[in-house]
């Protein structure tokens, strides 16, 4: 298939050896590449019961076929493994430039196996694959690691073109909240992946190369990209809101609809004058940064200058503002910015870490845990303590060890599992599922835990981009969720970012795919591939010990109506939606894909 390099690199850290292998073109046709191919290879090679932190678990980094070709937003590389937090399959996505550089370095995918005896860095630079000792990097933040590695390269020209993924202290300490970070400050958003990387004693992967990518029909491809850029520019959300503020522009909208959770999902309308877009403008100097080939450029970089909080990094996204800020009762943007930068430096997942802290805060407030027990005075609204706690968690100091195990473990060991707001061990992304029903259904059924990036239903439920849907209604939502879940599987497999779907239709991507890859897919063919991938992941999770009883939400969402704000009185109705969702997916009432469904998806031999 054009677009792809057609090779992957297999590195065995136990033996210190590597091997270059060809990708079977039939697999590309069936799974596209990126997430699809990564999941296929992972599920073929790894036993679902494997302990995530054992050397038998593998870590796969896979860039899709459109990555690096100049297809708009063709930038993302998927990080696939069995997560040590959720124990499900995990698939995180890098943004920035790492994914494209991996392809220029000559590989569509890297498979990491085994465990190195001492810390190492995998360096794939100009066709030389080396496993370098990394003792001097151990203990350093992700940003320091990147700076030091580039310095050690000795050649500023090479350093300029080298891109890294790395783990911070959290990953080294095998915390289930740990994340992988790429391009210095971008969290990939997959709690548990950092710990897996840490368990392999792998501190970082560096890539650079000068391979060319082949595009099937260059002239047509260039025209299609032109058209897509124009279309995108005529869509105000994608071209203005995202470009100006990044995803943070959603904060105000979600607040107005009662979707933005406050204080561990208990309130929705505490006064919040400080976190809207205006406040963002005054708290930070926003500088737009784009991922590879992205005309949107939603990443906002900044330098925080505040009497208490200072640092350099990313302006908080919607996710960070929600999870580390508002849901912990904090609305000081400088503090939230600091917390989110700290997460990136330490290699902590902002959603999982924010969720653990919010859980702890409620436990303390309800007097289940005493601040003395935690040895830290966590309270809703106290930003300084939150930042202190994040540092302690990542370095596993003091009694933050308990916090570092995640919200679920903390709530369970305190005897109040009901106070953990998460599914499959992962804290909910900051969308109250009672006020946005489709998202709630996705949170309950997602293969990767409750993360909004694997089904952007809010494009229609909240922003009304393609369809005008009422977030509180459940009609049509199971179909919507299925469609978005499959769409995101396709986009991830191609290596594209989901955000431009805020301005483009999925159909607009079909000519892009075909002119680049030399294929003749129709939109439905691609969605079928997405469905195939979703089912393959489901099958893996089922064998890993999950079943329909895990497709659920915490009782707070199904039993306690929202107590205030615009969505007051709403309750999540997932139990009404799940049967229809299973039915649409062709699954039985136990949520299992029966043989005929698997056969229709050509997965019968899986």
């Amino acid at each position, binding site marked *: 298939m054009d677009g792809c390099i057609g090779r992957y690199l297999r590195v065995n850290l136990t033996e210190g050896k590597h091997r270059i292998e060809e990708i079977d073109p039939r697999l590309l046709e069936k799974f596209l590449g990126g997430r699809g191919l990564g999941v296929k290879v992972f599920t073929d090679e790894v036993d679902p019961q494997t302990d995530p932190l054992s050397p038998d678990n593998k870590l796969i980094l896979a860039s899709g076929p459109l990555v*690096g070709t*100049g297809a708009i937003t063709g930038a993302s590389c998927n990080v696939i493994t069995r997560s040590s937090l959720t124990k499900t399959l995990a698939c995180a996505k890098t943004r920035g430039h790492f994914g494209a550089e991996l392809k220029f370095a000559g590989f569509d995918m890297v498979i990491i196996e085994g465990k190195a005896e001492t810390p190492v860095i995998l360096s794939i630079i100009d066709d030389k694959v080396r496993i370098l000792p990394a003792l001097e990097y151990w203990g350093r933040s992700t940003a320091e690691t990147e700076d030091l590695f580039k310095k050690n390269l000795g050649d500023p020209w090479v350093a300029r073109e080298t891109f890294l993924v790395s783990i911070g202290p959290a990953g080294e300490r095998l915390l289930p909240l740990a994340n992988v970070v790429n391009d210095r400050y971008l969290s990939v958003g997959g709690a548990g992946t950092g710990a897996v990387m840490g368990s392999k004693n792998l501190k970082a992967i560096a890539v650079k190369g000068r391979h060319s990518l082949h595009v099937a029909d260059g002239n047509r491809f260039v025209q299609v990209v032109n058209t897509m850029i124009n279309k995108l520019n005529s869509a105000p959300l994608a071209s203005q809101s995202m470009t100006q503020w990044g995803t943070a522009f959603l904060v105000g909208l979600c607040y107005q609809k009662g979707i933005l959770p406050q204080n561990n999902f208990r309130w929705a309308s505490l006064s919040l004058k400080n976190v809207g877009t205006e406040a963002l403008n005054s708290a930070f100097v926003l500088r737009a940064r784009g991922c590879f080939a992205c005309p949107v450029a939603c990443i906002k970089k900044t330098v925080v200058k505040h009497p208490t909080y200072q640092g350099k990094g990313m302006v908080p996204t919607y996710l960070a503002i929600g999870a580390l800020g508002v849901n912990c009762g904090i609305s000081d943007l400088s503090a939230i910015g600091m917390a989110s930068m700290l997460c990136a430096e330490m290699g902590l997942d902002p959603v999982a870490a924010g969720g653990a802290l919010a859980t702890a805060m409620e436990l303390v407030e309800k007097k289940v845990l005493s601040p003395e027990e935690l040895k830290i005075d966590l309270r809703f609204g106290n930003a300084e303590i939150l930042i202190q706690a994040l540092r302690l968690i990542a370095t596993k100091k003091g009694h933050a060890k308990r916090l570092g195990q995640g919200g679920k473990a903390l709530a369970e060991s305190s005897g109040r599992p009901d106070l953990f707001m998460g599914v499959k061990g992962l804290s909910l992304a900051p969308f109250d599922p009672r006020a946005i029903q489709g998202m709630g259904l996705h949170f309950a059924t997602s293969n990767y835990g409750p993360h909004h990036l694997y089904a952007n239903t809010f494009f229609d439920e909240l922003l009304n981009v393609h369809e005008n849907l009422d977030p509180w209604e459940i009609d049509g939502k199971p179909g919507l969720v299925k469609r978005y879940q499959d769409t995101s599987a396709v986009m991830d497999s191609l290596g594209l970012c989901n955000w431009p779907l805020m301005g483009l239709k999925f159909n607009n991507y079909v000519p892009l795919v075909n002119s680049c890859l030399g294929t003749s897919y129709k939109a439905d063919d691609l969605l079928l591939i997405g469905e195939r991938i979703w089912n393959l992941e489901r099958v893996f999770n089922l064998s890993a010990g999950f079943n329909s009883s895990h497709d659920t939400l915490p009782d707070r969402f199904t039993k306690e109506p929202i107590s205030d704000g615009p969505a007051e009185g709403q309750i999540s109705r997932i139990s009404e939606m799940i049967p229809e969702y299973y039915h649409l997916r062709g699954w039985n009432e136990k949520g299992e894909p029966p043989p005929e469904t698997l056969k229709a998806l050509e997965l019968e031999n899986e």
Partner: protein
Amino acid sequence: MPRIKIDHTKCTGCRHCETACSLNHVANTVNPRRARIRVMKEEDQYFPVIAGPFVDAACTSKQTIVIGNQTYDMCALCRASCPQKPYFIEAETGIPLKCDFCGIPPNPSCVRWCNTGALELVED
């Protein structure tokens, strides 16, 4: 005479211009290292640099330039393809690369794909 005006404060570092250039000059091929425009990252700034003429010897002195409170390496911002720096040299053949305005009439592909206004075609 038409010129490409570069406003580095608008550049997001997306490197879409590099892919556009490479696609336009090497049929059906994308490779930023074969592009005649490269986006240099210096400290926190991105500087799109368009390939100028080839020089067969490197400068004998290093130069730096101070903008605001940051010091930049002039070599990175320099347009020449030069033996000292591994840019603007066609990877496969070793031939030096130079911007040709994408032919006549000028319709530079990098400008077309730059969505931020960092690259602009202006007429004097």
